[in-house]
C-alpha cells in the first residue's frame, strides 16, 4: 500500500477522461437515435436487471462487509464522488467489479475477487467502477449489454461500442487514481488476461519494475502484430464490432501511456493544491 494517497478534492471527470471519449460522447448524446434508444430502454433495463439484482445477488452492508465498504468509501472520497452506490455480491470465478443499473448505478462484485484480490487491487477495481459512474457511462454500458443483436440496431451499436472501448481507458485511469499503484493496476490487468494470482503477485510488486516489464511486453506485442499486419487489422476490426470491452492489450497500452504522461502531473497538481489530504 502506498504510504501516501492523494485525495482529489474537486476532481472533474474532464481531468482524467480520455480525450476521444469526450468527443465521441458529445456526438452520441447529441444524436436523436441515441436519445430515443435511451429514453425507451432505460426503464426496461432497470426492470430487467431487477431479478438478478434482488433475486440472485446478495446485498452487502457496512455491518456484513466492513472491509469492502471501507475501501469503497475511501475510493469515493479519493475520486470526489458524492453518491454511495449499493454493493452486491455474486458467486463467480471471475474478476468482476462492475457498476450496473441505469439512472441509479449499483456495484456488483464477485466473491472470488473480493476474497483473492489484495487491498491495492481492490482500490484499483473500485476506482475503475466508480470512475465509470463519475464519467457518466454506466447507463449506456448497461443498455448496450441488453441490446439484442438486430440488423436495425447495427449502426447505433457500432457507434456505442466504439465509445465504450474508449470509455474503458477512462475507467482504467480512474482505477489508477484510486489505488495510486501502477503495479496493482497491472496485477489486475494480467489476472484478467489469465495469469494465476500467485504469478501476478510475484511478478508485479514495484511500480518501476512493473513499468519496465509492461513497456517491454507491449513492444513484443507490437512486434508480433507487425508480423501479420493484415490479420492484426482484421482482428481489431472484428473486436471493435463485436466486443463491448476493448481488447486487453490496447487497454494496457493506453494505461501505460497515461501513467507516463498526465498521471504524474495530475498527482502533483492535487498534492500541491491547498487543502488536499494525504493519508
Amino acid at each position, binding site marked *: 500500500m502506498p504510504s501516501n494517497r492523494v485525495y482529489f478534492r474537486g476532481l472533474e471527470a474532464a481531468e482524467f477522461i480520455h480525450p476521444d471519449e469526450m468527443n465521441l460522447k458529445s456526438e452520441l448524446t447529441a444524436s436523436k437515435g441515441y436519445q430515443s434508444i435511451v429514453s425507451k430502454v432505460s426503464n426496461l433495463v432497470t426492470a430487467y436487471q431487477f*431479478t438478478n439484482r*434482488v*433475486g440472485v445477488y*446478495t*446485498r452487502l*452492508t457496512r*455491518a*456484513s*462487509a466492513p472491509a469492502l465498504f471501507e475501501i469503497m468509501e475511501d475510493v469515493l472520497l479519493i475520486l470526489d464522488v458524492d453518491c454511495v452506490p449499493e454493493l452486491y*455480491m455474486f458467486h463467480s470465478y471471475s474478476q468482476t467489479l462492475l457498476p450496473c443499473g441505469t439512472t441509479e448505478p449499483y456495484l456488483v462484485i464477485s466473491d472470488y475477487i473480493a476474497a483473492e484480490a489484495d487491498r491495492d487491487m481492490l482500490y484499483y477495481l473500485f476506482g475503475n467502477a466508480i470512475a465509470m459512474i463519475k464519467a457518466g457511462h454506466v447507463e449506456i454500458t448497461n443498455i448496450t449489454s441488453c441490446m439484442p443483436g438486430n440488423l436495425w440496431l447495427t449502426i447505433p451499436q457500432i457507434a456505442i461500442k466504439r465509445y465504450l472501448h474508449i470509455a474503458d481507458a477512462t475507467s482504467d485511469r480512474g482505477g489508477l487514481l484510486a489505488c495510486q499503484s501502477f503495479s496493482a493496476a497491472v496485477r489486475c490487468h494480467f489476472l484478467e488476461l489469465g495469469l494465476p494470482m500467485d504469478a501476478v503477485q510475484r511478478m508485479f510488486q514495484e511500480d518501476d519494475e512493473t513499468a519496465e516489464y509492461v513497456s517491454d511486453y507491449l513492444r513484443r506485442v507490437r512486434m508480433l502484430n507487425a508480423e501479420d499486419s493484415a490479420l492484426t487489422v482484421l482482428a481489431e476490426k472484428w473486436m471493435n464490432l463485436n466486443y463491448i470491452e476493448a481488447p486487453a492489450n490496447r487497454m494496457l497500452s493506453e494505461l501505460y501511456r497515461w501513467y507516463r504522461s498526465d498521471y504524474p502531473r495530475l498527482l502533483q497538481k492535487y498534492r500541491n493544491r491547498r487543502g488536499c489530504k494525504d493519508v
Partner: protein
Amino acid sequence: MYKPKDYQHPRDRALLGQLLEMHAVGQLFDWCRKNQADRALVYAYRASCPEINAATLPAVYDMVLRACEMFETEAPPLCFLTHDYDARVTAAGLFSPILLLSDTYIQRADEACLYGAIAGQVGGIALGHQRGIGLTWLFDNISGLLPIPGVAVKAAEVLLNQWKRWRWFSCDRACLLATGSEEATLRTLFDLSVPEDILHRMRLGTPNDDYIAQYHMFTDASAASELVTMLNSMQSDTPWTPERYRELRSFCETAFASEGGTEGEDFI
C-alpha cells in the same frame, strides 16, 4: 425419522404427481427401462467422476448415510465427486438415485451446511425427485431419440420447469429438519455466494438479520419488475433467493403444526 408428509411442499407433491402421471412420461420411462438408460447414466458418472464412499471420503459419506437413515431412503444413493465451482450438492439419476457433490463446496462449506445440503437432496431423493431430474437430463440431451411426440415433450417440459422450482422448498425443509438449525439452513442459501466472514456477519435468522431489507426490496417490487421476474421465472429452474428465504422462515414458524406444513404463496 421423517416421512414425506413432514416436509414435502404441497406444490412439489402436486406437480411431481401430475408429471409422473402423464401418459407420455409413463411411455418414456418404459422406453428408458427397456433401453437401460439408468445403467447408461451410472456408467457415465463412474467413467468421469470419482466415487464418494467409505474408503474415499469417509466423513462426507457418513453424512450421506446419516441423512438416508433420517429420511428412510431404501438404500444410500451412489455418490460422485464433481469438479464444479458453481454447484453444491445435487440429486441426479433416473430410477436409481445418484448424489453429486461439488469438490469446491466440500472444501468451502462448514460441517453443518454441508450436512444440511446433503440432507436436503437426500430428502428430495426420498420423495422421488431423481425421476424429475432424470427427465430433465433426457429432454436436454436426447430429445431427438425419445419415442414421444415433440408436443408431448413440450407439455412435460412446462410442468417440469414449474416443479423444479418448487422442489427446492421441500429440500430446504428437509435441510432444516436434518440440521435442527434455522440459522444453518438459511446459511445454505448464501454459502456459495458470499465468503464465510460475510456470511457470519449477516446474522441470519436473528432479529438483526441482514437479509430482511433485501427480502422486502423483492416483495415491494414495482409492477414492471414483478412482471419481468415472472417471465424470468419461466426460464429458471431454481427459485429466487428471497422466495426460498420466505418459505424457509415461514416453515420454521409452523413446522410440525399441520400436515405438510404451510402452502406458501404462489410465486409464479
